[in-house]
């Protein structure tokens, strides 16, 4: 029917989109500021690409985490799982039967195993995700040190060539002080990140599963009443997050070429910060996967800026912390202004004391 809908309600940006927009604007402003302050460094394309080249593992982790957070959960085990994967891959590659294909399988296997275990406990046994993934964090850490304590430098020739492999963009680059043209280089990890971003962002936008994740994060009880398999949906989000942690681990060792006890330590917190800066709400239902890399980059640029300014490194952590405060407050202010509600910091169900009662708070009459 081509009848005209008479009432045209004001087109309103969804919360996901407005938070994404804010994140994007802040990122652009930050980058402009960086260019103005340190033109000879930030004006180089290579600096921009290096942000991805060096931090692809963190961005990949953040992608999976974002999906979990949109579903209303949290996964703080990802950093340790990533660390464990790097060490496992290193040990495997240095062993006699080491092969790159096998290492990839090891990485994916460990990630998925953690995802399945944690997803099952959280979704089907309904245990708080914070506790479960905290346990996962310790478990992965313990496994990592049990596996090998000392740093391993992977010397397998095939792997070394993979580690040193660069994709050279011949037409893009900068001239150095001597006037020699240096083309830009992209690491394979960056490509993996881009492919994953496209796949996962499409999944969240155009698949039934993706929309179910949004529904579950928005209102779990309603989602159930609407006929969504809530448990399975939550389960899959954790499997995805485990999978991305596994991939991140492989990309990590592909970048550094070494297994180390300290690999990716504390990365889960950086990933949570990135996700929040990128516009994913901690209380679920709101977020945009495209915001994940933007959030990570914003965090990184701030760190780069501070480093370039020659300030002590402890300032990096402090400024990151303050920035996070700022973002959470900003998000809450915007949300409360939009809904004309009283200002309140929204808390996810796993941080609320009586989350269960609030969900099932139907009054018997």
């Amino acid at each position, binding site marked *: 029917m081509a009848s005209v809908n008479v009432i045209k*309600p004001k*087109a*309103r940006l969804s*919360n996901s989109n407005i938070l994404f927009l804010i994140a994007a604007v802040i990122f652009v402003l930050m980058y402009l500021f960086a260019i103005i302050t340190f033109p000879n460094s930030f004006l180089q394309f290579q600096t921009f690409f290096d942000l991805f080249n060096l931090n692809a593992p963190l961005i990949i982790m953040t992608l999976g985490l974002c999906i979990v957070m949109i579903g209303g959960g949290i996964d703080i085990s990802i950093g340790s799982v990533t660390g464990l994967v790097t060490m496992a891959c290193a040990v495997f590659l240095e062993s006699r039967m080491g092969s790159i294909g096998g290492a990839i399988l090891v990485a994916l296997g460990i990630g998925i195993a953690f995802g399945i275990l944690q997803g099952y406990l959280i979704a089907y046994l309904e245990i708080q995700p914070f506790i479960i993934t905290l346990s996962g964090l310790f478990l992965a850490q313990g496994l990592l040190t049990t596996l090998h304590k000392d740093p391993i430098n992977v010397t397998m020739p095939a792997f070394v060539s993979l580690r040193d492999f660069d994709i050279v963009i011949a037409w893009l680059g900068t001239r150095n002080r001597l006037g020699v043209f240096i083309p830009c280089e992209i690491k394979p990890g960056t490509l993996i990140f881009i492919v994953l971003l496209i796949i996962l962002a499409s999944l969240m936008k155009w698949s039934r599963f993706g929309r179910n994740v949004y529904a579950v994060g928005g209102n779990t009880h309603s*989602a159930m009443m609407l*006929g969504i398999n809530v448990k399975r949906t939550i389960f899959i989000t954790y499997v995805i997050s485990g999978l991305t942690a596994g991939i991140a681990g492989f990309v990590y060792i592909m970048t550094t070429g070494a297994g180390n006890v300290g690999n990716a330590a504390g990365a889960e917190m950086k990933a949570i910060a990135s996700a929040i800066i990128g516009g994913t709400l901690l209380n679920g239902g709101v977020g945009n996967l495209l915001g994940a890399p933007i959030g990570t980059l914003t965090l990184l640029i701030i760190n780069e800026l501070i480093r370039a300014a020659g300030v002590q490194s402890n300032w990096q952590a402090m400024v990151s912390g303050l920035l996070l405060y700022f973002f959470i407050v900003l998000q809450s202010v915007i949300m409360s202004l939009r809904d004309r509600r009283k200002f309140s910091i929204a808390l996810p169900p796993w941080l609320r004391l009586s989350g269960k009662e609030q969900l099932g708070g139907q009054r018997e009459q």
Partner: protein
Amino acid sequence: MLSETILEMKDISKSFPGVKALDCVDFKLRKGEIHALMGENGAGKSTLIKVITGVYEKDAGLITLQGEPIHFKAPQEAQNKGIGTVYQEIMLCPNLTVAENMFIGRSHSPFVNWKQMNEKAAQLLDSLGIPASPVQELASCSIAVQQMIAIARAVDMDCKILILDEPTSSLDEDEVHKLFALMRELKERGVGIIFITHFLEQVYEVSDMITVLRNGKLVGEYETTSLSQIELISKMLGNVLEDVTKLKKHEPIVSDTSIPVFEGKALSSSAGVRPFNFAIQKGEVNGFAGLLGSGRSESVRAIFAADKVTGGEVRMKGKRVKIKTPLHAIKHGIGYLPEDRKGDGIVEDLSVRDNIILTLQVLKGFFKPFSRKQAELFADEYIKKLNIKTPTSNTPIKSLSGGNQQKVILARWLLTNPEYLILDEPTRGIDVGTKVEIQKLVLNLASKGMSLTFISSEIEEMLRTCSRLIVMKDREIVGELRGTDLTENDVMNVIAQGGKNK
């Protein structure tokens, strides 16, 4: 002439431990009919609905849908058979778009075709006249529109029967009319609608038939046009005027010119009562009468600031005071025994003793705790005074019976020695003996100079204890009754006429 029957329920019984929730109830729904299901609290409306939708399994009886016997084990099955339910609480996801909310959880394709979904949603919204765009976020729609979208979802699922469980309780008048227009439109299409509400006017505005339940039993099925409001009310409340020995009522000694203990002007709260004036004299017992949902609890909650107070002026003994939170109210000598004993009153795992001294402790300050001895003294005094049946004062309150729990909360308030005590349904769900005890206590306290407000769903209880009844209907005060020989009929008359001669 009545049209074809789509749903028929015969001799439905359902028991819960200790309660017979439904006792041989018959119910019949016809095509294109709006059928109001009426009854007071605990009458069995919700249970009946839940038996239809498969949330509960019936113990006995037969349900037929278009002549075919049905037996649902889960709400999903009922939905598949064309029984849609829209609850008071909107079961949609606020962060998804309108179109998604209408179609999510229904498709089996792994992909979402946004274009097709939005087109279908636009068509449906358009045909039902719902003022929303498929692409807007649900949270940006008003509550009424969200309610309509929930209905549209149910309708699109090929529904033959639509159950609306108190859909209007959070809507304003304008929104209610929009909802009614939608209901009439569906009725034209032959959908049978079961409508539950506490607003009598709405029943008369929109329904064709009324079925009344009381205490789990069927009172009868009536055509709306042939049942007057007063008849409906008396059928809901029951006209059994037992010849109970009237307790001697205590008349306040003071005249109306003296300064009231509590006086509120244009009080209003976020719970949605219309601004009201209320005053109570020393030693007076008054009551708020009205059907469930008439705003009686909301009014006293506004006095105690249990809901967010949004306006009005309060004087205690002539002095203007600010009461914005329950703590202010307690400090000014007001006590409130809440309707929801489990949720607002008792602290389940604490002992009887700790529950008794709780409010007094709050007043004293948490850093100056009572000595164990002092607390025991208080507790023992009131356990004796109120005849609370508990093994020791150290027993957790959750192991006591409902009536004794209620007495513990009463003791808690009496210990603070309030000047004005509000009792909201203190007798609900407790045995008859305790009920009488509590009523006696109320009169006893009043004779000692305490002012009390006593609310009960059972009007006779209020008639026995209160010297003044404030009658409420649809969240507004519609009348005030005084005198010693009031009858239930007087109250019903005021409710039925109230709001009509505006």
